[in-house]
């Protein structure tokens, strides 16, 4: 307790010594795109007369800058936009909403990234990965789909689960240790079709940021990363539509004003039609089978007066697999968010959010003339309040809190629409809450620190029948709890610290420390994430997982910020890590907690990246060398052993080249060491069957993985010649419909990357055991046509 009081005390001393009352006035407002009204996140405000003073717009485009009484010239800038200068005469607080005009899309090959050009060096955040939506649109991925999840896995420290895998690993963390937020709503399964596509339609997205470490205090609930995805608001000036038609899927987005300059909406939809190939089948049942997914994003916002803005956003996505009417399997997410931005004053900004999130899967089958449905679900209701107080130009305090009600339905069984109580697992309930406070503080012009505290609580509540297990997993007690009765409760105090020292205008060093708590755990009886994985809450048997991560980094830009170099080393230690007893059953098992074992894990590594941001040729090279190890009493005699996601080397090269203004070619090459895997070391026979005998967990490696993807993007002419009747001359007029073709090949040299290796008896000679490698994709071409108007 004394340790916690010390941290809190130091925090308040640091903050209070910097809150000095002066005669300062504020200029505040929102910075938006002049063409479509979208908020510009991270736009810069500088004062010409005071170069050391500046401010950056927050995720809602809001900024606040403090200045003494007087006349000043404010310069608003954002990469890819024309700088705007505004003269102000300060005698009181001023509200200034600014619209920035996009510059021409290619100025001497300038690539629009939507970020400050020196952000790599000067941003106080570290261990943050950002990819612009425009980069996502150029990089080829499977089936030609633009996919933010696949693209972000090309960055250092972020590893793909592999072909057909739904999740990703960040700095050695497992797939469930990533908090994925879509407009602040958690998304529990972020993939379609077993990981072939992500649930995010890039046409609906505005900004994506992934925190690998140095987590800000406002984030919590997962150990390894936060992927914060913001949807577009919609064009509040004119109506537009865009879409694409591809081999596997098609999509359409429509956006426009509700009231011009006051409110807008955007609706995006996408559907695959992989099952259309089933129409070629001669089997009637196969012909009537289904294999597709769809997703919809909807968002609307409206400004009520000058201080309030309301947002409504939602996501609905579903994967459907069905064999005739006899068998079906579908799964999907639903999220809904209602947000209210309120500007209390020129210094105090508030965001209040009400959230709903639902993930479920259902198996359906007809057997013995009965309709059987079995499934699982997790539902969240949440209320969040986030405030930002712009104390002065050197201090920005963020504080707030949230409360989430979780409902877990681990296994429901219905026959002919009636719930089968003997085969249905009880629902589980819990309340997760947190409060936080942090300060982003500049000390001089070269030093910045962001420090904060997050305090969280997780309480499992009734009603329910709760089981107690001993260390061997044997059931020792069964206790009934009434509604809202406390079953188990955990608290966590999580300090957060980010430090930045700017060596010069080209380089900086950074350091960070973060403690994180995770109260929800994804249990999976498979080496690869699947839609049927089950979310379990912390409970009387399952303690929260706790991670402590430190990181250090050196960052340097070259050639006027056209090249960025970053290097980071990190060390992460995890307590109460979870693994499974041999023979663990995850699905439809009321005693699943007895099949879990608890231990430690550690991850450490070095990440390097060199990125070329500007020019006809752009892209990056990234390399990570790392280790992830686990330690459990029950496994490998309590020695540290490689985790499944341990891959020593991970290498990515991404290149995008503008051959002409209309023709762009891109390529990626990825390589990584094979994952740790358990293979048998001998065999024996039981009842005539060959049985594998194991000597250690994860003592072997899958073959190394590598592949190259290439893509070509060809844009149709943007302008056409039109006769001006008045002047009689031909004029260059922008075409109403802009279009492009994309051709890509995934795995262009057809490498047979191993998805799995199993040991089986040869069908003709059962005495012979063979290692059988399964590979998923070889050459996968795709073509798509995209349009917008």
């Amino acid at each position: 307790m004394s340790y916690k009081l010390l941290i809190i005390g130091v925090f308040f001393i640091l903050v209070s010594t910097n809150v000095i009352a002066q005669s300062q006035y504020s200029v505040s407002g929102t910075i938006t795109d002049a063409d479509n009204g979208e908020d510009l996140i991270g736009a810069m405000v500088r004062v010409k007369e005071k170069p050391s003073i500046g401010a950056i717009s927050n995720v809602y485009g809001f900024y606040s800058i403090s200045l003494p009484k007087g006349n000043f010239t404010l310069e608003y800038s954002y990469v890819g936009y024309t700088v705007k200068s505004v003269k102000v005469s300060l005698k009181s607080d001023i509200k200034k909403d600014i619209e920035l005009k996009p510059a021409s899309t290619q100025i001497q090959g300038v690539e629009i990234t939507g970020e400050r050009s020196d952000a790599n060096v000067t941003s106080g955040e570290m261990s943050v990965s950002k990819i612009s939506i425009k980069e996502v649109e150029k990089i080829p991925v499977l089936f030609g789909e633009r996919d933010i999840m696949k693209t972000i896995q090309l960055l250092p420290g972020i590893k793909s689960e592999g072909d057909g895998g739904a999740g990703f690993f960040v700095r050695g963390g497992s797939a469930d240790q990533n908090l994925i937020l879509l407009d602040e709503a958690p998304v529990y399964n972020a993939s379609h079709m077993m990981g072939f596509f992500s649930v995010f339609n890039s046409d609906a997205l505005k900004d994506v940021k992934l925190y690998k470490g140095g987590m800000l205090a406002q984030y919590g609930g997962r150990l390894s990363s936060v992927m914060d995805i913001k949807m577009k608001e919609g064009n509040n000036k004119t109506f537009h539509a865009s879409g694409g038609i591809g081999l596997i899927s098609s999509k359409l987005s429509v956006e426009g004003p509700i009231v011009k300059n006051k409110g807008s909406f955007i609706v995006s939809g996408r559907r695959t039609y992989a099952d259309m190939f089933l129409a070629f089948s001669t089997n009637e049942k196969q012909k009537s089978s289904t294999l597709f997914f769809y997703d919809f994003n909807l968002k609307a916002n409206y400004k009520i007066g000058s201080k309030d803005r309301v947002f409504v956003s939602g996501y609905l996505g579903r994967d459907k697999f069905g064999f005739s009417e006899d068998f079906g399997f579908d799964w999907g997410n639903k999220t809904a968010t209602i947000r209210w931005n309120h500007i209390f004053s020129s210094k105090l900004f508030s965001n209040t959010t009400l959230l709903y999130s639902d993930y479920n899967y259902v198996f359906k089958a007809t057997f013995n003339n009965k309709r059987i449905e079995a499934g699982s679900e997790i539902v969240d209701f949440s209320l969040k309040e986030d405030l930002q107080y712009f104390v002065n130009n050197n201090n920005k305090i963020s504080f707030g809190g949230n409360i989430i009600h979780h409902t877990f339905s681990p296994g429901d069984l219905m026959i002919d629409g009636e719930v089968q109580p003997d085969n249905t697992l009880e629902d589980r309930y819990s309340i997760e809450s947190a409060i936080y406070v942090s300060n982003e503080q500049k000390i001089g012009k070269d030093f910045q620190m962001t420090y904060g505290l997050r305090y969280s609580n997780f309480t499992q509540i009734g009603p329910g029948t709760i089981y107690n297990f001993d260390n061997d997993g044997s059931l020792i007690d069964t206790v009934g709890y009434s509604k809202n009765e406390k079953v188990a409760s955990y608290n966590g105090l999580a300090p957060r610290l980010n430090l930045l020292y700017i060596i010069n205008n080209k380089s900086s060093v950074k350091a960070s420390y973060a403690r994180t708590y995770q109260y929800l755990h994804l249990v999976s009886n498979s080496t690869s994430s699947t839609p049927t994985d089950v979310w379990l809450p912390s409970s009387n048997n399952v303690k929260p997982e706790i991670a402590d991560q430190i990181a250090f980094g050196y960052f340097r830009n070259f050639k006027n910020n056209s090249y960025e170099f970053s290097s980071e080393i990190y060390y992460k230690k995890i307590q109460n890590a979870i693994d499974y007893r041999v023979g663990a059953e995850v699905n439809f098992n009321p005693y699943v907690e007895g099949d879990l074992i608890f231990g430690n894990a550690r991850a450490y590594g070095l990440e390097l990246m060199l990125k070329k941001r500007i020019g006809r040729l752009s892209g990056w090279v990234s390399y990570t060398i790392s280790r992830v190890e686990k330690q459990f009493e029950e496994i490998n005699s309590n020695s540290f052993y490689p985790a499944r996601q341990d891959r020593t080397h991970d290498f990515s090269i991404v290149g995008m080249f503008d051959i002409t203004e209309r023709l762009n070619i891109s390529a990626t090459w990825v390589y990584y060491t094979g994952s740790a895997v358990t293979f048998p070391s001998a065999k024996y026979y039981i009842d005539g069957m060959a049985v594998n005998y194991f000597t250690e967990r994860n003592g072997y490696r899958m073959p190394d993985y590598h592949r190259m993807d290439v893509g070509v993007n060809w844009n149709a002419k943007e302008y056409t010649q039109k006769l001006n009747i008045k002047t009689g001359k031909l004029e260059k007029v922008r075409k109403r419909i802009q279009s492009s073709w994309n051709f890509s090949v995934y795995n262009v040299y057809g490498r047979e990357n191993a998805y799995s290796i199993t040991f089986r008896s040869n069908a003709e000679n059962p005495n012979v055991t063979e290692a059988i490698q399964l590979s998923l994709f070889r050459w996968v071409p795709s073509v798509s046509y995209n349009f917008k108007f």
Partner: protein
Amino acid sequence: MNIKTIIYIIIVAALASCTKVVEIDLNEASPQIVMDAYVQDYGEDWKFQKVNAKLTRSMSIYEDSAPEVFENLEVYVTNEQGKRFKLDYNNQVFMYNILIDDVDRSTNWTIETNIEGNEITSETSIPNYIAIDSIVAVKLPFGPRVDGLSPICFFTDIPGEANYFRLRISINGIPMNSLFITRDDGFDGQQIAYPFMNTEAFVGDTLTISLLAIDELSFEYYKVIMQNMGGGFSAAPGNPITNIEGEGVIGVFTGQTISEVTRIIE
């Protein structure tokens, strides 16, 4: 071949996963003694219980010969009344048929032997007998191809106790070399229908299904073996817990009852 078929073939060929045999260098585990034994009851109508034990040695994963069988051993079983029987060796197996007239039907059994200086023992219990109600072969929506039929075994669980089952199937005298296990979770005291999902039979075939009610530990043993066979996707691959005691010994001693039905599919 029309254009639709050509397009279909191209697309399937491009997207289709592929399998191949690969060479993986594996560490050699030190050889283990393997006991695969059971004591079996046929139900009250039958007047004997049978004990069967096969003792072999584990081998290198790529070795393509049959396992080494231990022959010159003294293997004993003892029932709960303390009566000890020495098993006879015949055709790679140690076995004994115990007449019930001579001794009381016994539930709890112990087996013991000595191999290469290792004392090896194990205990098991025979669960209650459960009979097959009926067997059928029907067309299931997600079953075998075209005109293939899926065999289904019906049996009724004993209420008020946990029951575990292993099933065997042979078609036209050829046994399926796979593990089929289940238990009565959620179906206590009810009739259970067990479909053999990846098994194909046709009209006119002779279908033989054996229902073994087995002890819990043996069920867990077979369950882990099945998980390890699951295409390499088990998140916790490892050796099942054995009930055999002894240095360097693995395997299982199962207590089981057997009910068997044969019919010709019509």
